[in-house]
């Protein structure tokens, strides 16, 4: 079933060239909300933008290989009301983040609450 959906998705992607999210608040369809993954690694980029703010983190998997994680939250204005800023993360920061992972097993996730930046819990 999931593969079928994947195949359909790919077709549609090919057709539309791009899938496009709204400014905020996407459904849970792509994420496995039952799971939590801890991502520990180094920030390589922080994108403070709409539709969603996101951060890229290089982390090691169990075999020591580097995995390029991309972790998203909500839109920029929403995050600003929660105390996030354009300098919450910067490249080189060592982070430890709880993440809701994508269902398809790719290193894509959504912030799930706990965020530690350079050893300090981030509580805006």
């Amino acid at each position, binding site marked *: 079933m999931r593969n079928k959906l*994947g195949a359909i998705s790919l077709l549609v992607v090919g057709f539309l060239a791009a899938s*496009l999210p709204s400014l905020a608040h996407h459904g849970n369809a792509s994420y496995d909300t039952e799971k939590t993954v801890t991502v520990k690694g180094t920030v390589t980029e922080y*994108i403070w933008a709409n539709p969603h703010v996101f951060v890229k983190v290089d982390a090691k998997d169990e075999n020591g290989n580097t995995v390029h994680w991309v972790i998203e939250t909500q839109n920029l204005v929403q995050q600003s009301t929660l105390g996030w800023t354009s300098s919450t993360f910067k490249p080189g920061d060592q982070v430890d983040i709880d993440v809701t992972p994508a269902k398809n097993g790719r290193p894509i996730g959504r912030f799930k609450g706990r965020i530690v930046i350079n050893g300090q819990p981030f509580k805006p």
Partner: protein
Amino acid sequence: MGSHSSRESPVRASHANPSDGSNLKMPKPAISTIPTVALISALCLLPSLRAQTAPPASVDDVKIDKWNSVPLRKSAYDGLKPAPAPRRDLAGAWYAAGDPPAGGGAAPGIQATGAHEYPAVLRGNNTPPGGEPDEHNIPRQLPYTPLGEATLKAHKPTGMSVRSVPAVLGNDPLDICDPPGFPRLELYEFRMVEFAQMPDHIIVLSQLSRTWRTIWTDGRELPKNPEPRWNGYSVGKWVDDYTFVVETIGVDERTWLDNAGRPHSSEMKVEERFHRIDHDNMELTLTIDDPKMYTQPWQPLIKFPLRLQPRGFDIREMFCVPSDTAQYNNEIGDPSVAPDQK
């Protein structure tokens, strides 16, 4: 960020911030200088002590960041005694989103699951997984006509409503940065709105999409057979000194009403009723009348609260930016629904 205590001017009243005692920390003086320093200290302290004991007189006394101001939470108004509403005046920056619920979730104005009074959620589940074929399992059904229901089903929302689909399968106009249009400006991501009042019209500036609407108050009639516009055509009048009623027609059919994909036709009439309760508070009731899509008028917002923000409030931008959206899709939107990777 986050603290709005008033520290800018000592004579201004304050929401005192206990951790901010910078004025009170004096270095230990040498003994011979104590009398002088004590006198100076006392003189210095007087205004700041006064500032920390007097309550703010009005919302304008509450400190905000001067740039990219953060809207005040409701608690910032605790203890304020709002002045009476000024007559026939909506001017100022108003916050509509409200506070997020204590138990978590989005603030009321966000309306991620659809219009505030008609959220497209399953009974007992405010974060639906999407995937429902229709809205028959939501608590408050809308009075769709057959055309209304068919048009609803042709709209594939990607938000948080019961019929949501993965972003790649959706057709929400906002997903390609089309204008939200009116009244979606008030039925999705309804955050900051600013009113600029002119002698013959009122301009409503919206944070979402950084767009504006002109509401004519010069007595002109609405156009006959209007050419559709994203934000339609609006006229308004004061029905009493504190209630401003706006009629809007001529909205482009490509816009959705809300994040759940509720449709409208070009025959839709929208009424906004802004009722100013006092200086700091206003309510908005919004009525949709569209006989092609709905068998009777319905009200997505009923006495929905808006709070006046302090003078000098600087509204942050909220654009849908095609290049940023393309990057997001490339890095997250598309790969998150791509085939499984193990």
